[in-house]
C-alpha cells in the first residue's frame, strides 16, 4: 500500500466511530418495527457512545457527542439539549466504570450498560415529562432500552474487532 493510501486508511479507521455516530443521528436510524400493537426500536447511539467511551475514549470527543445530541434533538423533535444531556450522562457513567474496572469482562459490561441506559432513560423521561410535558410513553423507552441491551454483546464483538484495527493502524 502507498504511504498516502495508508494514511487515508488509518484516518478512516480512526474516524469511523464518529462517522457512524453522525450517520445515525442525522438519519434517525433506529430499525423500529411494530409488533403486537407495540412499537419497538433500537438505540444504536447509546451503544456506540457507551462502548467507545468505555473501551477507547480517544475515538469519540465529548464535544462531538454534545453536537450529535443537538442534531438528534432537531431530527427527533425533542427539546434541544435533552439528548446532549443523555449522551453526556452516559459518557460520565462509562468513564466512571472505566476508572473503577480492574478486569474488563463482556458480561459485566453488558450488565453495566443495562443499568446505565436505565439511569439515562429515567433522566430523559423525567426531563421530558416533568419540565416540558412532552408526550412520551415510558413503555416505549423501556422496550427500546431492553432491546438495545440485548444486542450489546453482538455489537461489542463487532466493535472489538474495530478497536483492534485502530490499535493495529496506530502501531503500523
Amino acid at each position, binding site marked *: 500500500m502507498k504511504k498516502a493510501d495508508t494514511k487515508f486508511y488509518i484516518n478512516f479507521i480512526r474516524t469511523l466511530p464518529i462517522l457512524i455516530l453522525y450517520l445515525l443521528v*442525522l438519519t434517525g436510524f433506529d430499525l*423500529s418495527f*411494530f409488533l403486537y400493537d407495540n412499537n419497538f*426500536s433500537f438505540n444504536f447511539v447509546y451503544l456506540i457512545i457507551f462502548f467507545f467511551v468505555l473501551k477507547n475514549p480517544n475515538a469519540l470527543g465529548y464535544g462531538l457527542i454534545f453536537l450529535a445530541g443537538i442534531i438528534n434533538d432537531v*431530527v427527533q423533535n425533542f*427539546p434541544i439539549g435533552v439528548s*446532549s444531556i443523555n449522551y453526556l*450522562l452516559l459518557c460520565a457513567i462509562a468513564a*466512571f466504570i472505566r476508572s473503577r474496572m480492574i478486569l474488563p469482562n463482556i458480561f459485566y459490561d453488558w450488565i453495566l450498560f443495562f443499568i446505565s441506559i436505565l439511569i439515562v432513560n429515567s433522566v430523559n423521561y423525567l426531563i421530558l415529562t416533568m419540565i416540558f410535558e412532552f408526550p412520551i410513553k415510558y413503555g416505549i423507552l423501556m422496550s427500546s432500552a431492553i432491546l438495545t441491551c440485548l444486542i450489546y454483546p453482538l455489537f461489542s464483538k463487532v466493535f472489538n474487532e474495530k478497536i483492534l484495527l485502530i490499535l493495529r493502524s496506530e502501531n503500523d
Partner: protein
Amino acid sequence: MATETGRDDFIISIRSAFLNKGTRQKFSLFTLLLASIFVLSLEYFKTGPVDQIRSITKDIIFRGSNIFSSPFVFIKDKYYLLQDHIKMYEDYDNLKKKKLKLESLENENQFFKEENYRLKKLINEKSLLSENYVITKVLLDQKSPYLKSVIINKGFKHGIKNGSSVVDNSYYVGKIVDVNHLSSRVLLATDLNSKIPVIIEPGGINAILSGNGNDFNAELEYLPIINEVKDGDIVYTSGIDGKISAAIPVGKIFINKDKKLVKFFTNFSQINFVKVNKQK
C-alpha cells in the same frame, strides 16, 4: 479506615469522570453538561432572536440530514418500485375484476359537486372545502416509536402555518406542527399524539381519529355508544377544529374483533411529495 479509602476512591473516580479531559478531548464532561443545560433552558424562549436562531439551525440540520439520508431513500424507493413491478399483474387483474366505470362515476361526482355548490349558495353556507394548496417535497422521513413525522421543504417564508392540513393524492396525511424559515414538520396521522376530528359517512357520525403508532390503521375515539358505523364506511376530516380543512378523505372503516379501526388510504411508507393547505 478501609471504608474511608473506598469512599475516597469513589469520589476520585466521579471527579475524574466529570472533570478530567482525555488526551484528545477539548472540553470536560462537566463543562459540556452545563452547556447542554444552558441550551435546554433556551427552549423557554418561543419568540425573538433565540427562536430565529433555532429556526435557522433546524433548517441547516434538516438539509444536512436530507443529504445524508439520500442514499437510503434511494434504496428504499427502488425497493418499493420493485415491489410495485412484482405486484403489477396482480393489481391489473384486481382492477379488471372490479369493472370500474370511471367515466360515468366522474360525471356523477361532478353533478353532485355542482348540485352541492348550488344548494349551499341557496342557504348562504360557506364552503368548507379548501383548494388553496402548495406542493412540497419531503426532505426527511422520520418514523421512530416516539414520533412519526416528515420534514417538508417549505416553511413560513412560503406561507405555511402551524395546524395546516397536509394531503397526499387528496388523502389526509397529517398536520403541520413546527414551522421554520425553509422547512416544516408534519405530524403524521399515524403518530401516537395525533388526534383529528373526523366525520364518518354515511350517517354523519362525529369522532376523533387517534393514531396508535401503526402505519396502516388508527383508532376511533369518542364514538357515540349506540352508532351505526359499518365495515367500509368512509372517514373524512370534519374540520370542526377550524384548522384542518373539512372533507379530506382519511380512510375506510374496518372492524377487527369488535374494534372499529380506520384503514388509511395513504401509504405512509411511500410519501415523496405532499400538498399543504395554505390558510388565509
